């Protein structure tokens, strides 16, 4: 039996070598080659494509993070990059987030455009001081811009427990000097990450790990395709209720909106895409249209991103409202590991449907 195992391992290795030669996937291959047969890219591959294209475009762009080289990163986003760009531009670091951000800050001061990867967004707080004190305020204090991207997989719904499911966007959205981006679709992820790399100041780019391999779509091949930072987008037009949301909750909201259609309630889904700065114009435009708003978000309810969205609507859209602003978000507890508890923690489609029904009848 041991013999058979060794044989099989050998077989696998040779298969991998074939793949490399064919350029279809695997080490050294361009992420675009990993799209599905009909040309669709997952959210994860779209992110890899963005990094690859920006590294091809601009030599000052380099990656650093834990195990991003030969291993290809915790989620395999940078798989194959080291073979194309080498260890100087795909740099493995010690397991120390403070160092990772510190290195990025120093490199940016020297004219590089570093893109740092965190294995999980939960671990960004290990580098919190470097992020919010140094990276965020450097331009303000010194007048010198600091082009850094901090990429991290965030969010729950994947049974990863309290240390691997955090939505830290409010921490960073609260630090002046940081832009915070939370895309929900492959196209937006690709276009926004390219914009972030090209931005001259620090961007926190929070990928959602629940979306990584769940959502696929055709993405642009144009190397100059970007999506502007700070612009929300209406992902579904509707007349009766607006759902203002971002990240994985966009997909829940869209599913809920489809379910509601049978009840004769037409729901509009606004994907913020960037949570700092907020696109208040698009938010208020939707509020003006429907007059009823559900603010749906995955960061904790109290003082989460949706709290600010609600305040903006109350302040600038008071006389556009036909019902009180409603919020749906997780309670102020850590993300549970137990599947039934995690399901109870995260807003679910049926709760969103119920909330929208209640709003539409208010």
């Amino acid at each position, binding site marked *: 039996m041991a013999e058979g195992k060794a044989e*099989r391992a050998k077989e696998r290795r040779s298969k991998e070598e074939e793949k490399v030669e064919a350029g279809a996937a695997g080490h050294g291959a361009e992420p675009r080659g990993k799209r599905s047969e009909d040309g669709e890219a997952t959210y994860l591959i779209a992110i890899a494509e963005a990094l690859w294209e920006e590294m091809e475009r601009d030599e000052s762009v380099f990656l650093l993070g834990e195990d991003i080289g030969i291993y290809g990163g915790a989620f395999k986003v940078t798989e194959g990059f080291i073979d194309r760009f080498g260890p100087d531009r795909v740099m493995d670091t010690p397991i120390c987030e403070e160092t990772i951000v510190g290195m990025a800050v120093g490199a940016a001061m020297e004219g590089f455009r570093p893109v740092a990867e965190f294995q999980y967004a939960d671990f960004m707080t290990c580098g919190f001081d470097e992020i919010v004190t140094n990276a965020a305020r450097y331009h303000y204090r010194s007048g010198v811009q600091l082009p850094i991207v901090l990429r991290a997989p965030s969010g729950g719904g994947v049974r990863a427990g309290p240390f691997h499911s955090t939505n830290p966007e409010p921490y960073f959205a609260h630090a002046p000097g940081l832009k915070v981006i939370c895309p929900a679709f492959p196209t937006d992820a690709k276009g926004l990450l390219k914009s972030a790399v090209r931005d001259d100041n620090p961007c926190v780019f929070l990928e959602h790990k629940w979306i990584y391999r769940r959502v696929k779509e055709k993405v642009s091949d144009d190397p100059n395709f970007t999506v502007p930072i700070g612009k929300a987008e209406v992902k579904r037009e509707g007349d009766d209720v607006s759902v203002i949301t971002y990240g994985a909750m966009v997909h829940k909201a869209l599913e809920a909106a489809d379910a509601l259609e049978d009840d004769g309630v037409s729901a509009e889904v606004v994907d913020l895409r960037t949570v700092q700065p907020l696109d208040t114009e698009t938010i208020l435009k939707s509020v003006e249209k429907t*007059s009823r708003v559900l603010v749906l978000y995955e960061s904790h309810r109290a003082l989460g991103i949706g709290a600010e969205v609600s305040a903006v609507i109350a302040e600038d859209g008071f006389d556009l409202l036909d019902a009180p602003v409603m919020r749906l978000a997780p309670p102020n507890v850590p993300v549970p590991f137990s*599947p039934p508890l995690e399901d109870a923690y995260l807003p679910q489609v049926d709760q969103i449907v119920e909330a929208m029904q209640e709003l539409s009848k208010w």
Partner: protein
Amino acid sequence: MATPVTMPQLGETVVEGTITKWLKKEGEQIERDEPLFEISTDKVDTEVPSPVAGTLVAIKVQEGETVQVGTELAMIETDGQAASAPAKAERAEEPAEAEEAPEPKAEAPAEAEAEPAPKAEEEPEEAERAEEEAEAEEREKEKARPDEERPGAEPAKEEPARGPAEETEAAAPARVAVEAPAGGGPRSQILSPLVRRLAEENQIDLSQVPGSGTGGRITKKDVMTYLESRGAEEARPAAAAPRLETVPQPPPTREAAPAPRPVAQAREEAIPLTRMRQAIARNMVASMQTTARAWNLVEVNMENIARTREAAKEAFRQREGINLTFMPFVARAVCEALLAFPDVNAELREDQLIRKHYVNLGIAVALEEGLIVPVVKGADTMNIVGLGRAINDIATRARNKKLVPDDVQGGTFTITNPGPFGSIISVPIINPPQCAILAFDAVEKRPVVVEDAIAIRHMVYISMSWDHRIIDGATAAQFLGRVKQNLETWDFGPEVGLPARGS
């Protein structure tokens, strides 16, 4: 007993896997934990051991196929192994992996089905809560409502007229009643900011709008439907119309929605309207659009009053510190006439006439920047001295901007006096919901016929604009006749410290 083998989840983000190789054929025996097949996923390639011992009876997914996590791949018959693993087989019946990674698509119908049940439970609760709230609100209102001045009219209807909204909206054609339709449910009293704004902009009497929201609340849709139906019947101010098509309207922030501003040409000057000017403009137009205005004029011989005033004014000034004008005399005569003709001292509330057996007399006071109408409360209880003091007080405070909101509310009738500026006849605009406004112009000496001789007398034209919805010409003329009679025949001397006439 057959145990299913499912696609395992290898890593939390992996949602599908490809079978690269089956290591057993159908019909072959397999031990527990012996490698059964190989898979390739986005994250890893690996071999997967069998969960149980038995015979591989069916392979359901062939090599090269890619399936979702949790999909059934094969069946293993465990009967032959019964002795070794009954417990294992049971455990395997509910494959843990399948539960952990439900396919998103399979999830949706289940959730949709579950949905109606909790809702049905929740609704009564909701209604109860809302009912309690409504009751609590009602009690609050009860407390806040002053006891005095509540005639036979429905108490609930009394409120809007006394609310703070009344001041700014005083002359609005159909007041934005902060009342929802009578007999509404628990939420019927709540008006959303949007509904209030739409009502104000389109001058809607919300008591006419049926509510379809929870508890009978009036929603945006209800207002829109009402406006559409009203639009068919009535012409309405053009300015209000475009705002209603709310869909892709002007940018949301107020200052971001600039209406093109008219620009002053050569030798012209553009002056932004003050808030007061805007309020006057709005209220006056609203009055002209909702009242059926008619007008009457009488000429009054003020000779007696002029003499009384002449004789008393010096002492009056010394005693009271204020000038004795004609105004308190006219006010005094008007108050008596109003009590005698209560229809003139009345207002329309829906389809009812509300007569007021008290007089709160509005006095129009010209200011540099416009006009304001402070009110002398209980004017019918005052004599000339009291009226003189009260009128002087409110007029002085109006000019010094010392009026409080209560000073400009609750008027039942208004007197305007353009006389000091030289006007001899005026046609004023009614201040709704009041029925009428009286203009008292300049008192001047004119040649008049007295007992078939021409004599010089102090004369004045007193005119009144009145709402033909409430009264008719006969009432208006009789009322003015009463004022004229009072002014010409009453002996005001004793009220201002003079001996009675003829004594």
